[in-house]
């Protein structure tokens, strides 16, 4: 409520126009002979920063890759990779494959929780119940205030009850991991919501005769697509990297399986870490491309 009243009034009619074609100003800048102004950095500055930071970040990944080819006898070998496909060793890696499967299922469930439970409530709060915004933010940031190791102590009794209702399959972990993902999913959507005046946009669309579904699907969600995408990205990353809950609740997920196999075969653990990093990266890359292509084809 206060945020709306303190908002500078004059550009109210401008806001929806500015908010809709997000890509416009950047096209102008790319063509630019004109002197730079505003926040945009020089291209050389950008490249130097990105290359230096990128190189430092690639180093540990490269070191993992080199390690995975290291032979026990010194020198290098592809033997560790062949081990994975060796039928004689299949039993050794069985747990790992179960863990991977469980973790992928958990990704779907957790993203669904964010999209079906969190996102509608955030939009509804912004549009209809702005007084509840602080409450929602408090709830969503609470899992940061309560570290996972602590929350797990409370999850243990909750899950002993839950497993009587739903069984003790790994997918039930999705509810707990969804809570851990809340703050990270909430942040990008909230920042996006704060940057787009959805109230004015919605009022404009409604006054033009759009129904709520149309407002939601064609006005609100397209304006929030970067926030929503970032929320999904980060949720998937949270699920794939989640170790604490699974290990304390004794479920087999990718991370707990990695720790187990690391004791018997560190090379295979590193190989699968690498593959998982690459797979997650490619997956998120695909989602990211989809996100930036979709609105363009709509124009």
């Amino acid at each position, binding site marked *: 409520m206060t945020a709306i009243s303190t908002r500078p009034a004059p550009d109210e009619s401008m806001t929806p126009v500015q908010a809709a074609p997000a890509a416009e100003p950047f096209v102008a800048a790319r063509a630019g002979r004109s002197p730079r102004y505003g926040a945009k950095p020089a291209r050389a500055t950008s490249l130097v920063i990105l290359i230096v930071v990128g190189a430092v970040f690639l180093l540990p990944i490269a070191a993992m890759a080199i390690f995975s080819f290291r032979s026990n006898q010194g020198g290098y070998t592809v033997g560790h990779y062949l081990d994975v496909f060796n039928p004689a060793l299949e039993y050794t890696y069985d747990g790992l494959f179960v863990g991977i499967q469980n973790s992928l299922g958990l990704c779907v469930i957790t993203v669904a929780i964010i999209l079906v439970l969190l996102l509608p409530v955030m939009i509804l709060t912004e549009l209809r119940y702005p007084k509840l915004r602080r409450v929602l933010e408090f709830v969503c940031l609470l899992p940061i205030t309560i570290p996972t190791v602590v929350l797990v102590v409370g999850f243990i009794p909750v899950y002993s009850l839950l497993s009587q209702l739903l069984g003790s399959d790994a997918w039930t972990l999705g509810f707990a991991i969804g809570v851990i993902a809340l703050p990270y999913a909430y942040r990008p959507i909230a920042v996006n919501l704060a*940057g787009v005046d959805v109230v004015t946009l919605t009022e404009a669309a409604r006054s033009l005769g759009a129904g709520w579904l149309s407002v939601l699907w064609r006005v609100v969600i397209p304006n929030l697509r970067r926030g929503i995408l970032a929320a999904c990205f980060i949720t998937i990353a949270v699920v794939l*990297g989640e170790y604490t809950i699974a290990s304390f609740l004794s479920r087999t997920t990718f991370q707990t399986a990695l720790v187990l196999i690391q004791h018997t075969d560190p090379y295979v653990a590193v190989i699968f870490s690498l593959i998982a990093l690459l797979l997650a990266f490619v997956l998120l890359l695909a989602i990211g491309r989809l996100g930036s292509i979709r609105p363009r084809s709509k124009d």
Partner: protein
Amino acid sequence: MTALASNRGAGVTPRRRGARSGTGWIGLIPFSVYAILFLGIPAVLAIASGFFTSGGTFTISNFSAFGDPVILKDLVGSLGLSAASAILGAVVGALVCYAMLGMNPDGWLRTIVDSAASVLAQFGGVMLAFAFIATIGNQGLLIVILNQVFGPGTFSSPIYTVPGLTLVYLYFEIPLMVLTFMPALEALKPAWGEAVATLGGSRWTYWRKVGFPILAPAFFGCMILLFANSFSSFATAAALISQGGIWPLDIQRALTSETVVGHENEAGVIALGMIVVMVVLMSAYGVLQRRAARWER
């Protein structure tokens, strides 16, 4: 699903403006139930455990743990590690965000950085530990190469100590900063830059008078988020450090070593201590958020 459906329901009916008395509140129910079941109840159970003996009797004697010099030393370790990784992570992360602003927001480079950042931001834990053991562990690639150049034993691995963990933590703190700070930087309106240029201001003027002041609340808000992330992160530390040194490891030790008499509910007590620290941080975050929101509309 229910939430969406009720939104629809509220919309089909009247065209009244600002109908507060509608059925929209039904849309709040599913999330509320979820939050109570999987956040409220576990949180209360976890904190409450600090106030009880293992037999279930109410007590405050568990709080004598805060007099333990080891616990106090580990608190300092935790705070130092979190502060160092949050400050460095926020500065470097903000620089990366700034650099990204020069890239086409729909371009491939932008997508690659976004994707890589989200993969790394929450890849704390085991895989991160593997990566750093392979790089600067005792037999790590970089350590081996450096010792070949400068003679054996010149460099030893830094990652098995608490200060050395800062390096490892930066590997997920910087990407997290990129992910959380980028939207705020993108919310800077081009019109503000145009206005400064029109009035004859330089780019430095723009940053000094417009950019920095407007971004400051979001920047420090994100930094606090990074601090919180380091402070409560434990899997990475657990994989690299065996002798404790930060509070999350103390909690793990207290939770797993149930055989030590008198320490059963120490985890709940340290947890409560952590929450006190976090509540202070989050209050500051709330204030900064309100300031940031003022300009992002």
